[in-house]
């Protein structure tokens, strides 16, 4: 909770910094923000972890239980790394304060999504997170692609929101409450005595959430938006936003709709299967690394959905938590390398040609990131995938496992295209890609340690 406040405060501070730039707030903004995020992280962990008293706020609108804290920890940590590597993006942008403000507001939304306990907060959280992103996606004003990305994201996003709301409305209609706990109670009390449209509502919310986490067939926006947006923003979307969305998803479907999983599990299984196939297959022939990463994020979403599908809170929640962490670390690394490479030679695979020679360290980091995303042992990605396997193995959806194995074999193909390009292809440019990368090392270490 305190973390949430801190971040909101930071956002407003950033906003005001524009106005009082006279007294040099702008200068100190960056460090302040970093410290703030760190502070939020620390405060969350220290003051609220395992603390039953301060769990629930504002009559159950929002709850910072360990679940929420854990995920917000992931989000804040990722955000911290993100800010470090995005720093020069802010530097060479004109209206830096606005960016800060927007990113921080989005962060607020994300934190809400980890902690919501009520449909209202869910809805507001999603919107608070999305609206700044619409703007950020479009923030390269003279770049038509960027505009298009923002616009697509906006239209499709609000379209999905429509369904979310319709679902919420129906659920509310059936249960007479927005509170997750009450809904859950109603469900268990009713024993299937609920009106049919209640399930329709659940399905609609499922669809909306699937859109937010980008699962097929609601994934179409992902590649376009990821490609169009500025790289750092893409990184933000594919890590923090995705984590938040998944947290919301988990809470919604494990906590409130867990009782009626037989109603939605087949659907979700189908969605997972479709996402696995579509994403991996399509990614195989992408020429643009950002797009490739977009598709890879779809397939990862499918993996995390498996954990939810299992409806075994004991295994699923740690599974998702670990997966989000591993995935975020991996793709943050990937994106930061991509960002630095793309600056001088574009976002195509050929941009990576000969990186092994031009900047071995960076190449190494990228390699590790790719291995992790591909789920090769002993990278974090592998353990994450393993958790999912182990979880799904306990359910009746073993066939998904086989499908996952097959598709991830395909997945290896496009991840390794990058590696091969880095070490095998001759570089077009011979001059080294010089860039200081303390961050990267941090990434690699985190990736390796897990």
């Amino acid at each position, binding site marked *: 909770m305190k973390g949430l406040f801190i971040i*909101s405060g930071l*956002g407003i501070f950033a*906003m005001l910094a524009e106005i009082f730039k006279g007294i040099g707030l702008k200068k100190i903004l960056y460090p302040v923000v970093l410290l703030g995020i760190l502070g939020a992280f620390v405060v969350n962990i220290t003051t609220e972890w395992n603390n039953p008293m301060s769990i629930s706020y504002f009559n159950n609108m929002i709850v910072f239980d360990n679940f929420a804290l854990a995920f917000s920890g992931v989000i804040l940590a990722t955000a911290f790394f993100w800010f470090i590597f995005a720093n020069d993006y802010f530097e060479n942008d*004109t209206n830096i304060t606005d960016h800060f403000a927007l990113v921080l*507001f989005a962060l607020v939304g994300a934190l809400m999504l980890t902690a919501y306990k009520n449909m209202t907060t869910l809805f507001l959280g999603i*919107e608070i997170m999305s609206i700044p992103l619409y703007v950020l996606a*479009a923030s390269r004003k003279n770049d038509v692609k960027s505009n298009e990305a923002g616009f697509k994201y906006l239209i499709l996003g609000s379209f999905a929101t429509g369904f979310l709301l319709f679902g919420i409305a129906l659920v509310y209609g*059936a249960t007479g409450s927005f509170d997750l706990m009450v809904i859950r109670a109603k469900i268990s009390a009713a024993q299937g005595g609920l009106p049919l449209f209640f399930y329709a509502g659940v399905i609609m919310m499922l669809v909306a959430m699937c859109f937010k986490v980008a699962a097929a067939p609601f994934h179409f926006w992902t590649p376009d938006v990821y490609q169009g947006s500025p790289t750092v923003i893409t990184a933000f979307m594919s890590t923090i936003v995705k984590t938040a969305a998944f947290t919301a998803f988990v809470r919604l479907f494990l906590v409130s709709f867990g009782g009626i999983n037989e109603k939605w599990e087949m659907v979700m299984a189908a969605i997972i299967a479709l996402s696995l196939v579509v994403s991996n297959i399509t990614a195989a022939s992408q020429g643009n690394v950002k797009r490739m990463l977009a598709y890879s994020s779809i397939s990862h979403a499918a993996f995390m959905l498996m954990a939810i599908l299992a409806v075994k809170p004991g295994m699923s929640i740690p599974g998702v938590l670990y997966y989000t962490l591993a995935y975020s670390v991996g793709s943050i690394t990937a994106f930061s390398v991509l960002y630095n490479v793309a600056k001088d030679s574009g976002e195509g695979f050929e941009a990576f040609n000969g990186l092994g020679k031009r900047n071995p360290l960076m190449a190494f980091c990228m390699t590790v990131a790719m291995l992790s995303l591909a789920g090769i042992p002993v990278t974090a990605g592998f353990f994450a995938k393993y958790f999912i396997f182990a979880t799904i193995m306990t359910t009746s959806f073993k066939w998904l496992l086989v499908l996952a194995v097959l598709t991830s074999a395909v997945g290896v193909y496009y991840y390794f295209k990058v590696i091969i390009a880095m070490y095998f292809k001759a570089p077009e440019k011979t001059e080294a890609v010089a860039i200081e990368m303390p961050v990267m090392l941090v990434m690699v270490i985190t990736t390796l340690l897990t």
Partner: protein
Amino acid sequence: MSTLLLNIPVTQYLFYFLSFVAILCGLMVVISKSPINSILFLILTFFAIAGHYLLLNAQFLAVVHIIVYAGAIMVLFLYVIMMMDLNHDNEPHKNAFLKIAAVASGGLMLLTLVGSLKGAEKLTAANPMNTQVGLIKNLGTTLFGEFLFPFEISSILLLAAMVGAIMIGKKEIK
């Protein structure tokens, strides 16, 4: 008794009338060529909906609805349209396939929705009948009691929207 006989149909008629208007205008929004007309029809739809709110004795909401939507949002729309002066109904038609597909899938969706939105008979009201809920007093208590946090946090939302809009709107300093 007689009043009842007299009265019940009235609301029914009102309901049907408003529904008819809403649906019709809604369709017009989609069909009509020029954006301006669309927007205007949309406003009409909103009025119809406001009428429904009244029927459902959510008077305050009805008022707010008119103000916010018809008053603010739609005006914004119109303003933008004027600004870009898009009021020529020369919207080139997108290929027939997509149109048909759109309508067809829309129809399908409606069917499935209608099919799946049954089961109201199983429904039981959460609270005893109370016509006063829609009054400002109740709303106020709910809003600033139970829903205080969302209310506060939605300020962030609006801030974000504001900042965003400004940032986008600002001319790039080159």
